[in-house]
């Protein structure tokens, strides 16, 4: 969820709670004020009637055109003693001249005249609670939305404006690729927190970069350092192999050692090559004809793997596929992909190579899908280790594709498909 949506959600929820509480409070306050005023009026009205009653003056007629009504009943002393002298209540009363029932505020007043108890009931139509609640609710909802829109608008504007440095920083992090030279972390802000964040990011990136470089250097150096001892070993073995006093058995042993050494040499060379690719040491670029390169490689592997009965066929859409890249790398890319298919195909199967548009696809037989996430890792060998294979072929392909930002994909659809989008 985006930060701004989170803010909007919280604002809406909290404002809803706040406005509800405010609505309740507002209603209560308004109600109390109205009741207070009505009671004052009822009090003076009843005082007026009682005074007139006691002094024997004519009291206003019950139906005097106003909505006010009053009754005077004689009550028993017991009743008078059992209720408070003055009582208020809300009730619905029937207004005779209007012939309808309305909400009213009623005041009961017990008074004494000539040793008899009388109860004066004065009623005045008051507000309808429900109407008031509805009205207040309606306006509260209206206010809520107005306030919400205003609040969200202002917040979004403020957040968007002030979070620009964060946006820039995130953009930088997204575009960051380890090992590739990137621009310094954007830190064009006066906000302390963002400056700190940018600084921490820069430091982390620098540290990471250094480590990446060191690791690359280490592999490179280790491989370099191995070259000389390897040269000594192979040289000495070759000299011994040339000697005339060797027995057949000894010669075979030596040749065996030599082959193992050659394997080390090849591993070492491939690691060096990868380091060089990752370090961007293959600078010169030319227009490479991928179709021709594929034909070359396929021809050679058809020859080498003829004994296995594996054949390859090439289909194109008749177009040319020229790619701007280093020629050496292009031939490594193509030959490793095709070789991989030849090496891992069951005997007697067919390899389909197709070049359509700017996509090269190599498909070969295989009964189980490979681990998509690890297939391009160094030294990862899926189904059992193949003797003599370095386990670096596809890693090399990936290194090259990464270098040129080519799309490299593995898809299993009953066969293994390796796809490069140039």
């Amino acid at each position: 969820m985006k930060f701004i949506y989170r803010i909007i959600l919280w604002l809406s929820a909290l404002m809803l709670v706040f406005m509800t509480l405010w609505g309740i409070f507002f209603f209560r306050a308004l109600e109390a004020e109205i009741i207070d005023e009505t009671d004052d009026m009822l009090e003076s009205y009843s005082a007026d009637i009682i005074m007139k009653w006691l002094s024997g003056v004519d009291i206003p007629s019950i139906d005097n055109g106003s909505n006010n009504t009053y009754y005077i009943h004689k009550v028993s002393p017991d009743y008078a003693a059992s209720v408070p002298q003055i009582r208020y209540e809300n009730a619905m009363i029937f207004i005779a001249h209007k012939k309808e029932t309305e909400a009213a505020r009623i005041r009961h007043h017990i008074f004494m005249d000539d040793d008899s108890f009388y109860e004066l009931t004065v009623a005045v139509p008051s507000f309808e609670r429900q109407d008031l609640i509805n009205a207040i609710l309606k306006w509260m909802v209206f206010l809520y939305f107005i306030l919400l829109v205003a609040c969200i608008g202002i917040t979004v504007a403020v957040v968007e404006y002030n979070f620009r440095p964060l946006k820039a920083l995130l953009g930088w992090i997204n575009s960051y690729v380890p090992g590739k030279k990137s621009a310094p972390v954007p830190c064009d802000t006066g906000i302390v927190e963002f400056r700190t964040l940018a600084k921490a990011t820069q430091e982390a990136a620098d540290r990471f970069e250094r480590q990446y470089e060191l690791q690359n250097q280490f592999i490179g150096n280790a491989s370099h350092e191995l070259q000389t001892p390897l040269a000594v070993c192979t040289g000495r073995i070759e000299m011994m192999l040339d000697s005339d006093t060797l027995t057949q058995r000894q010669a075979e042993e030596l040749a065996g050692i030599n082959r193992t050494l050659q394997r080390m040499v090849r591993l070492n060379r491939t690691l060096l090559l990868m380091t060089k690719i990752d370090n961007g040491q293959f600078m010169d670029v030319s227009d490479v004809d991928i179709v021709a390169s594929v034909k070359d490689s396929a021809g050679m592997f058809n020859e080498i793997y003829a004994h296995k009965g594996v054949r390859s066929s090439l289909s194109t859409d008749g177009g040319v596929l020229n790619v701007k890249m280093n020629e050496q790398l292009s031939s490594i890319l193509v030959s490793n992909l095709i070789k991989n298919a030849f090496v891992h195909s069951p005997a007697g199967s067919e390899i389909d190579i197709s070049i359509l548009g700017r996509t090269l696809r190599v498909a070969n037989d295989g009964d189980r899908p490979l681990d998509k996430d690890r297939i391009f890792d160094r030294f990862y060998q899926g189904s059992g280790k193949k003797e003599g294979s370095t386990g670096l072929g596809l890693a090399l392909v990936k290194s090259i594709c990464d270098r040129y930002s080519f799309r490299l994909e593995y898809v299993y659809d009953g066969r293994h498909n390796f796809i490069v989008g140039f």
Partner: protein
Amino acid sequence: MKILIVEDEAGLQDMMAGALRKEGFVVENAADYDSAVDKLDIYVYDCVLLDIMLPGGSGLDILSHIKKLNRKVNVIIISAKDSIDDKVRGLELGADDYLAKPFHIAELVARIRSVARRSQADGDFAFRLGNAVLEPDTHRLMIAGKDVPLLKKEFDILRYFMQRPGHLVDKTVLAEAVWGDHIDQADNFQFIYAQMKNLRRKLVEAGADIEIKAVYGFGYKLIEK
């Protein structure tokens, strides 16, 4: 032929010196920049095998020094850094050849012979053995003065052997040299046998007095009959 090996790794120096002496060269050693420059100032060599990374300085500086001396010395750079940049820089500075470590001793010998031949007979790169002459530049093989047409792979195989006559060549090494890094050692070598059979037949038919002999069941050797 007198050769100076400039190499700081004692083991490699020892091995190279031993192998080259066996080939009949006179060999001297220098293990660092200063002693190499000293020796080059005093003595005259036909060929210098030069390591790039040396204690006390860079092999490329020694190369510049040799060129300043203005003597006719062949220089072969031997470096663990198999980078095109280094190669180009070395060759620009006047090195005659560049060999990346690790290398095959036979190849080193072949390269020394090749640069020596190049400097002696201007432009004649041909390898000669018996009545066979192989010209790498024009991809031609002549036996007793007559052209023998070879397919590309057959030619590559023969060239590899002509560079190291009398040396045992393991078939896996041969396969790698001719077919490149694409060969796996676990592979079946049927494709070599087929090429080899044709090549041998062509040599015999042309009446060559050189022969590729199978040795120990895993290798070959080019010999004069």
